[in-house]
């Protein structure tokens, strides 16, 4: 079958690879219908996430049809049209039973890597380096899905492929940022990043009752989507003065909840961006936390900050003094999608959450390297390149 493989830093190739087989009783094989690029893939592509191996198949956000199931599968069956959560959940460990599914104890075959880097291992994730288990990704014709009963969700009739695919990752990730960030009715929420996850975080905040939601970015086409599709306010950071603008729009307080949806390759007009660029080039820092710093400094006293963006290592000049002296609550995490996806699919079906507009460029898998280049450079207003194997 055809699959998109990472072959080195900034190198992608569509290769002929073996088809997956069922290895465990809980497994299923899914014929991929759509598989989306994700901003976090760019960290893999650029070599910022350790543990990538040439030949790894990328892709973690996908939907498709089940074509085979293992002997232990009970809930799902061949022919089901499903969206699959990007993280794996065994459904049995303490973390899974407490809705912290991306922290699953039992789905990562490489626990020593995460324990060495982070002190503990995450659960497994499709197509996201050996650190999250080294599972083959979804930019392929077929994919093996362990624990299909817990990780695959039936797509309601009337929800299109282009809408459903983002329920795999972007929608639950954004919802988690607003939910676990503590958004409540009457809040003012600021979201850094107007990509798919940032837009979904903004929409989630609105549905959870926020009175005002402000999304910060510099790309006009994305800010336009925020205004016209999501219905939130926008702030173009290339105009400068983000801090002052946020204070002006929040009655001098700052946002109650600050959600960072940018990650380790943040861009900024501020001097600390250049500082981080130099330090990462010299191997003295692995990630650029520019947006995280700004979110912490902008949040109101006693507010909360949720880090949705992916980080893989160590950052410098972290404003811990602001966290402490302003009494902030800081939370983060990979997405615990299993707790949200059924509810989110219902909201998508009901028209409460629009997602299809994110798929600005739908193309055959054979064109995936070109799609990633467009996605990376934001060419032609690309918000997400989505591949149809």
């Amino acid at each position, binding site marked *: 079958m055809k*699959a998109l*493989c990472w*072959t080195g*830093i*900034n190198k992608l190739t569509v*290769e002929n*690879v*073996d*088809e*997956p*087989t069922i*290895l*465990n*009783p*809980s497994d299923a094989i899914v014929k991929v219908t759509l598989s989306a690029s994700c901003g976090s893939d760019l960290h893999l592509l*650029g*070599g*910022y*996430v*350790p*543990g*990538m*191996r*040439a*030949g*790894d*198949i990328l892709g973690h956000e996908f939907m498709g049809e089940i074509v085979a199931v293992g002997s*232990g599968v009970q809930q799902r069956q061949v022919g089901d049209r499903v969206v699959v959560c990007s993280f794996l959940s*065994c*459904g*049995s*460990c*303490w973390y899974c*039973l407490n809705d912290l599914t991306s922290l699953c*104890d039992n*789905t*990562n*075959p*490489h*626990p*020593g*890597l995460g324990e*060495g*880097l982070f*002190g*503990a*291992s995450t659960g*497994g994730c499709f197509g996201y380096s*050996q650190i999250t*288990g080294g*599972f*083959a990704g979804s930019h392929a014709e077929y994919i*093996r899905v*362990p*624990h299909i009963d817990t990780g695959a969700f039936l797509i309601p009739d009337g929800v299109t492929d282009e809408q459903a695919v983002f329920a795999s990752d972007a929608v639950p990730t954004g919802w988690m940022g607003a939910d676990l960030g503590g958004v409540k009715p009457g809040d003012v929420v600021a979201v850094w990043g107007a990509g798919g996850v940032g837009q979904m975080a903004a929409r989630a905040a609105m549905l959870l009752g926020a009175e005002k939601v402000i999304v910060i970015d510099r790309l006009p086409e994305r800010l336009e989507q925020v205004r016209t599709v999501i219905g939130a306010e926008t702030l173009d950071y290339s105009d400068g003065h983000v801090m002052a603008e946020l204070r002006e729009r929040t009655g001098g307080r700052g946002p109650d909840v600050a959600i960072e949806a940018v990650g380790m390759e943040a861009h900024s007009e501020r001097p600390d961006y250049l500082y981080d660029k130099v330090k990462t*080039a010299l*191997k003295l820092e*692995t990630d650029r936390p520019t947006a995280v710093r700004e979110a912490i400094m902008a949040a109101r006293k006693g507010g909360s900050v949720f880090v949705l963006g992916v980080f893989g*290592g160590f950052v410098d000049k972290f404003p811990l003094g602001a966290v402490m002296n302003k009494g902030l609550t800081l939370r983060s995490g990979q997405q615990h999608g299993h707790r949200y996806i059924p509810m989110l699919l219902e909201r998508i079906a009901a028209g409460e959450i629009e997602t299809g507009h994110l798929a600005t460029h739908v193309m055959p898998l054979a064109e995936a390297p070109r799609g990633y280049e467009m996605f990376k*450079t934001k060419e032609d207003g690309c918000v997400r390149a989505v591949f149809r194997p």
Partner: protein
Amino acid sequence: MVNKTAAGIVAGGAVAAIAAVVIRRTAGGGQGSPGHGARWRVVTINLEAADVLPGGILPPPLAELEELIEVRTSPAPGGRGTELAARALPLPDASGDDLPGLIRRALRESKQLLETGELPTNEPQPEGHRPKTPAGLLVDAVTRRSPEEGVL
């Protein structure tokens, strides 16, 4: 665009960092380190003790080490199940060089089998061409060792 040189340096550094961290016996339990043989390695299993050691019988991965280790269980706080602990017996010449690693693997696999009935795996699976570059071989090596390494 990401600067390729800079990204390459970062990636290379990160891979090296993984190797250093993973290969090093981070829990201080390497053979010959202070306290070797005395440190318990523990996993928490979301089951009652009677289901973890039914009739006092060790789960298969630990049973393979039965003559080299001692095992104990205790209730986990907060209703989180059972803490299953193992450590090497102080037997001369009995353990080889990597008994701590074997104990880590056996504890993890015991937990996985007891909680889910299967071991997580991705071998064999589809993959593209895997060139034998130094960085690639390093990733292969630390990945292969990872079930027996870490802070457990």
